[in-house]
């Protein structure tokens, strides 16, 4: 197979593996955060407002990790800067 074939194959596999692994851990972290928030919500329903607010912020922070993975994967797939070495 030519270099180009390898490049396409490896970037596709790398993108799929990266997004798969990169989603697992933020998902676990989000699950933990939501579990804790629900528990404390059941214990103290009157603190709903601040719990919800903090939960949203925390989820946004965790989510940005998954977004970083997505951005990296999109760069690999659509705008790989290393491609120009191959095309030279």
């Amino acid at each position, binding site marked *: 197979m030519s270099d180009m074939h390898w490049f396409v194959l490896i970037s596709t596999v790398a993108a799929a593996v990266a997004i798969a692994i990169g989603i697992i851990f933020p998902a676990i972290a989000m699950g933990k955060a939501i579990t804790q928030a629900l528990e404390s919500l059941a214990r103290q329903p009157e603190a709903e407002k601040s719990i919800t*607010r903090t939960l949203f912020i925390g989820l*946004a922070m965790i989510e*940005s990790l998954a*977004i*970083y993975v*997505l951005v990296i994967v999109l760069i690999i797939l659509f705008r790989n800067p290393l491609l120009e070495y191959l095309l030279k």
Partner: protein
Amino acid sequence: MEAASVVFTLGWLRITTTVVTTWGLMLVFGIGCWLATRQLSADNPGLVQTALEGAVQSIEAAIDGVLPGRAELLLPFIGTLWLFVAVANLTGLVPELHSPTADLSTTAALAFLVFLSVHWFGIRSSGVKDYLRHYLTPSPILLPFHVLGEFSRTLALAMRLFGNIMSLEMAALLVLLVAGLLVPVPVLMLHIVEALVQAYIFGMLALIYIAGGMQSHEASENPEATQTDDKKGSTP
């Protein structure tokens, strides 16, 4: 990740669809506010006035929950962020239009505004000296981390909004490629929810960063509050 298409060029400056859509939104906001506030009355408020008052009051209550007593100072900035980001995110649902926030340039500009306003409101509320001192607390060794955190959280703010909105639009497009006409509708419904949630999160994070900057002087006065402030100002 296709770049926004160029509408026309102004000398060496290329005006993209993102900029034109943003101008359109500004026009809509400007004209809408002008029309809505033409006939305000305290005695018999109309339908529009009541709706707007409800929106402003809920924004005010949200700010008051984070920074009690400072809602009046922050309402213009945070309220504008919230409304603009929400409407800009929802623009992607209109056919032929793209969300301005699906462009990294727009979100970077918004995040830069937040970055500047953190220092502006912080210095305004506690003075330059006290504000700069909070970078040296609890110990001067942590100064590089404070500075690094300022930049990384600004970057994260821009990347989060951009990544979410762009991936939403892209997801709808990809679903349309592999499936039929009506299949992307649930994805578009998800778009509505996600657009509003992301707008809320963007404004809320901006509010919390500003609150962290404003409370820095109160923290140095009573050390007990330092811990909670550090948590609020922590970086993603």
